[in-house]
Every structure is written in C-alpha cells, then in structure tokens.
C-alpha cells in the first residue's frame, strides 16, 4: 500500500521540493544537474506507476488514459532538462541571462512540471483546472524570461489570451458541476471524474453542451487550436528553446488531455451533442490555417510552432472522428509529435546558438557546416512532415486511410492540408540544410543525446511498435470510444 502510494506521491512531491531547492541554490551548473536529477526521478516514479496502481482517491486517480500522458510528460521533461542543462550555460555566457534569471528559470521549470503532473493525475475537475492554470502561469513568466521587447510582448499576449481561456474553462467546470449537482447532490462528488463518468448519463444534456463549449474553448486555447492559437507562435519563438520544447511537447498535450476527458463525459450522455463534428471542424481549420501560415515564416522557431498548431489540428481531428482506429492513430500521433517536435526544438536551439540567429534566411548549408545538426534537422522535419520510416507516417497513414473510407471529402481536405504543410516544411528545411553554408561556422557545444534519443524512439516506433504499447493504446482508444 505504501509502496503503491509512493509512485504518485513522488511525482507530486518531487517537483515542488526541487523547485524550493533550486530557488535558493547558487550556481547554475549545480542547479542544472539538480534539475536533471529531479526530472529523472519523477520519470522513474512515473514508470513505477505501471507496476503499482495507486488506489483512486477523490482527488487523485491513475487510469490507463492518464498514465500514458504522465509517462510521456515526465520522459520529455527529463530529456528537456538534460538539453537545457547543456543549453542554458551558453545563454549565460552570451549575456542573455544572468544567474538570478537562471535560478528563477530552474525553479519555474520544476513548478511547471509539477503543474502538469498534477493536472494529469487529478481526479477532480476543479483541481485539474487549478493545476493547468499553475502550469500556464509558470510558462508565462518563462516566456518573458529574456525581457526583450518581443519576449515581453509575446508573454503579455500569452498571458491575456491564457487568462481568458482560464476563465472560460472555469465557467465550463462550474457548469459541469451544476449539471452533476441535481444527480449527485451537493459536495465533492459532483467534481470527481470517476463518479462523473459513471453517472453522466443522468446529467442535464443542455448544461453539458454549454459546458463543453466553454471547456473546449478554454482548454482549446492552451492546445493552440485556430482561431484561439494567437499566443502560441510568439510564445514559442521568444521564450528559451527548452520552454518551446516543453510547450509544444507537453503543455499542449495536457490541455488536450482535459478536452479528451470532457469528451468522454459528453459521450457518456446520450442526449448531449456529439462533440465529434465540432472537434473535426476545428481540427481541420487549424490544420489548413497552419499549413498556409507556414509559407511566410521567416523565424525558424515560429515555423515549427505553426507546425505544432497543424499537428494539434490533426490530432483533434482524429479524436473527433472517433472509432478505435482513429483514436489509436490520434494517440500515436500525439506521442510521436511530442517526441519529434521536442527533438526538433532541441536541434533548433543549438542551431540558433551556433548561427547566432533565428532568421531562416541567414541559416544555410547546415549539413556542410554542422553535419550532425543539419542531418538531425533533416530527419526531424522529414519525421514531422509524415514521411516513413518514422512514427508520424504510421499515424497519418491510419488517420487518412480510415477517414477516406468513412468520409471521403474530409479525408481530401485533410490530405490537402498535409500536402500544403509538407511543401512549406520541406522547402524551408532544404533551404537551411543544403546549399552553400552561410553565417557562423562554430561547432555546436550542446549535447546531442536528447536529440538522438527522441529520433531513435520515433524511428523505431515507425517500424516496430512494441506489442505492450499497442495493446495499451488500443485499450485507451476503446475507452475514448
């Protein structure tokens, strides 16, 4: 029993402790390694959850759905901390940051991780809301870390839009409670997932519909769905690169997780509107919009931020289509996207440090000047563009082919978006990776390990998915209905 509780307890306890420690620790090398250590431990704790399921309390619960997210979350958190350990020192030397900033940065990093983990394990919609807001506010200050005009403006934009999202989400939460309260009576019952999901069929469908709209908009703002996406590109572009990686790789997923939970709630109620069409529409809009936006990007990080919007669109589309095949594909796509996109941001971070610019126009011939970085970028973009033998190809294969058999026109729109995005990404990638090299030729000093780790995972997953993971995903897909 105690052993069982430990995994969960660790995940929740480690980050705040580490944050408190990091807030006081002097010297960035030490704190960086502490940061890495804490992330590693919480990752191990998350792994342990596979083996000991902690009991479901009215505040925390671990089920098959959120354990996928937790493991992914802590894994990417860990690799990101490794990357940031090798990345952030350079920022110090280049004078972009000072030691105080770094202390703040590391503490905030752990708080952010804490918020996301808490949101994932929460069994209470109110608690989940609090946790996601915590994570958001932490990222807001991280985005503003550089204090440049652009950074502040990005953070301000992020903050305003995010807090409106917060408000919507809260209102939706209240509405859900209102819908539950006549059935479950007053009190904590009305906000507990495990209870809500079992009794959802009796709730008032009208309230649920309105609630879902607010929750979808509220958390959708975090997911970065068009037209709620406005904060995402700038936040990615102006914040420190590790934060961009975390934003794309994790925060979007956490918000997506919330939406999925409420979708299950809606699905459990017969009279409520089926959220599928809404999600499909918004997903397609995001995909097409982002695909066209990719063409005019001049900033490398903003480019990949838009590709995150595009992929979130695809994923939401897949979950909106529903059915075991599409849900499976959606989960796969989400996992692969976090791994690939964070790998890309690791690469991009080093590239920007080497070349000293984020302007695509000033980055040329990377495969000549920095072969490892250049080819990692090539592989990453090929992966994100959905080419084999990498993981996203498999998920997109499933999504497109299964959709075409069910709704041909939707599939055509999907393919159109994918093609347009593909063109933009590959063209930019060719410009940066090939041709005569330009700019500074300094060798990269960051560590390649996180990049290689992620890309290796993606390649392997593209060719061979371990049966255990497959079974797990299929089960979750069935849960999602």
């Amino acid at each position, binding site marked *: 029993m105690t052993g069982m509780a430990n995994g969960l307890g660790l995940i929740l306890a480690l980050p705040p402790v580490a944050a408190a420690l990091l807030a006081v620790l002097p010297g960035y090398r030490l704190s960086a390694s502490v940061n890495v250590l804490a992330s590693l431990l919480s990752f191990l704790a998350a792994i342990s959850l596979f083996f000991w399921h902690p009991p479901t309390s009215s505040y925390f619960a671990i089920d098959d759905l959120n354990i996928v997210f937790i493991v992914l979350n802590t894994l990417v958190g860990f690799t990101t901390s490794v990357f940031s350990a090798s990345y952030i020192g350079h920022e110090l030397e280049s004078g972009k940051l000072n030691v105080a900033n770094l202390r703040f940065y590391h503490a905030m990093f752990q708080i952010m991780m804490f918020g996301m983990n808490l949101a994932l394990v929460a069994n209470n919609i109110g608690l989940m809301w609090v946790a996601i807001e915590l994570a958001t506010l932490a990222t807001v200050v991280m985005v503003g870390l550089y204090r440049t005009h652009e950074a502040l403006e990005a953070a301000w934009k992020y903050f305003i839009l995010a807090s409106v999202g917060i408000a919507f989400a809260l*209102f939706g939460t*209240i509405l859900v409670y209102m819908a539950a309260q006549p059935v479950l009576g007053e009190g904590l019952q009305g906000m507990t997932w495990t209870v809500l999901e079992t009794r959802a069929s009796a709730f008032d469908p009208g309230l649920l519909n*309105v609630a879902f709209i607010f929750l979808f908009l509220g958390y959708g703002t975090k997911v970065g769905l068009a037209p709620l996406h406005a904060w995402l590109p700038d936040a990615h572009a102006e914040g420190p690169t590790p934060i961009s990686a975390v934003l794309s790789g994790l925060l979007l997923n956490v918000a997506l997780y919330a939406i999925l939970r409420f979708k299950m709630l809606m699905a459990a109620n017969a009279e409520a509107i089926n959220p599928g069409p809404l999600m499909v529409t918004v997903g397609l809009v995001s995909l097409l919009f982002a695909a066209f936006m990719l063409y005019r990007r001049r900033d490398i990080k903003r480019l990949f931020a838009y590709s995150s919007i595009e992929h979130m669109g695809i994923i939401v589309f897949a979950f909106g289509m529903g059915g075991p095949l599409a849900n499976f594909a959606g989960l796969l796509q989400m996992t692969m996207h976090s791994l690939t996109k964070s790998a890309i941001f690791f690469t991009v971070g080093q590239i920007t440090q080497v070349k000293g610019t984020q302007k695509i126009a000033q980055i040329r011939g990377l495969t000549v000047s920095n072969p490892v970085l250049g080819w990692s970028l090539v592989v990453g973009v090929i992966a994100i563009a959905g080419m084999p033998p990498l993981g996203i190809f498999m998920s997109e294969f499933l999504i497109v082919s299964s959709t075409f058999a069910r709704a041909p026109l939707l599939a055509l729109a999907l393919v159109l978006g994918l093609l347009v995005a593909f063109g933009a990404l590959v063209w930019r990638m060719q410009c940066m990776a090939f041709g005569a090299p330009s700019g500074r030729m300094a060798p990269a000093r960051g560590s390649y390990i996180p990049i290689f780790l992620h890309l290796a995972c993606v390649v392997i997953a593209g060719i061979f998915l371990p049966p255990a993971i497959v079974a797990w995903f299929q089960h979750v897909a069935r849960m999602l209905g």
Partner: protein
Amino acid sequence: MHGFAFDVAHLLAGSLVLVSFMLLYQDRLYALLNVFALHAVVLSLSVAWQAHIQDAPHLYITAVIAIGFKAIIIPVALHRMIVLLGIHREVETTASIGLTMLIGLGLVGLSMAVMLRITPHADLVAREDLAFALSVLLLGLLIMVTRRNAVSQIIGFMSLENGLVLAATGARGMPLVVEISVAFSVLIAFIVIGVFLFRIRERFDTVDIAAMDQFRGDRQ
C-alpha cells in the same frame, strides 16, 4: 419566502449586469475604476445573499474576499498605478459607445436564450444566476475587446471574473476549492499583471498595447 429570496437574488444578479453595462458605458479611467468598485460591491452583496439563502457560511468568505479585494484593494492599486504611469485620462474606445451598448444587449439576450431555453430541469435560482453570470462574463469580454488601454482591459477581465464568481456561488454547495482557486487566480492575475505593467513601464512609455504591437515578431 422562497419567492422573496428568488426576487432578491434576481435583483442583485440583474443589477450586476446593469453595472457591467455602466462599465461598458464609461469612457474615463477614474470613473471606470469607481464603477468597477461598485461592480465588486454588488457582487459581494449577491454572494452574501446566496450564502444566506443556501445557508452556506463559507460563501460569506467569498463575499468578504470580493468586497475587500475587488472593491477596495484593486481599484486603489490601479488608481495609484494610473497616477504612477501618468497615462492620460481618456479611455479611447474603438467602437462607438452606442454600438457597444447594442452589442451588449444582444449578448445579454443570447445568454438568456442559451441558459433559460436549454436548462429546463435545473434549479430556477441557479438558472437565473447562470444567465446573469454568463451575460456579465460576455460583457466583460466585450469590454476587453472594445478597449485599447491596458488598465481598462484589466478591468474588463476582472468583471469577467466577477461573472464567474456569481456563477460559482449560484451553484449550490460547490466545494470551497473553487472560490479559493478563483481568489487565487485573481491574486496571481493581479500580481503578474502588476509585474508586467511595471516591466512594461520600464521599457515602453505607455501601456497602450498598440505601442507594443509594433514589436510583434516575424515582421522583418
């Protein structure tokens, strides 16, 4: 008794919407702050009344938080901030007042339609409260959309939060966790906004967001 309770709740919630309209109408910063204080007062009254009729004592805390926090501290702070920043007094609105009022009316109608039509089974007080809360929320958003000045946008956001509180208190027996989180988030929101205004003061001559927009990225 129930009828009376319902009427008072109705009255208070409705007057909150009214005050939101006043907010929408204001075009001077100081006046805006004062009206916002009034907004908070009305909110706290309605919360208190809810506490009374639901005999849920913990709601009184919320009422106190509302009156203390939103009616006194924040307006004062913002007042000082305005002085500190020395921003000019005018609140330049984008759309004309009349138009915004019309839109506001439309929004209230919408929220009524949404809430009252589709929730026939829910408790009547709750429905009324929700309807008004939704309209307050939408009006707050409308303020944020129609105002250029950062301070007035913050106020719009606050009034939006007020709507949330109204809804939360309308929900019978909703656990305390929510109020705390609301207060919590308002607090954080205020602090962070303050921090931002401060930083922005450091770097820009005005908090006018339009001035910040020229630093938007990707415009090489």
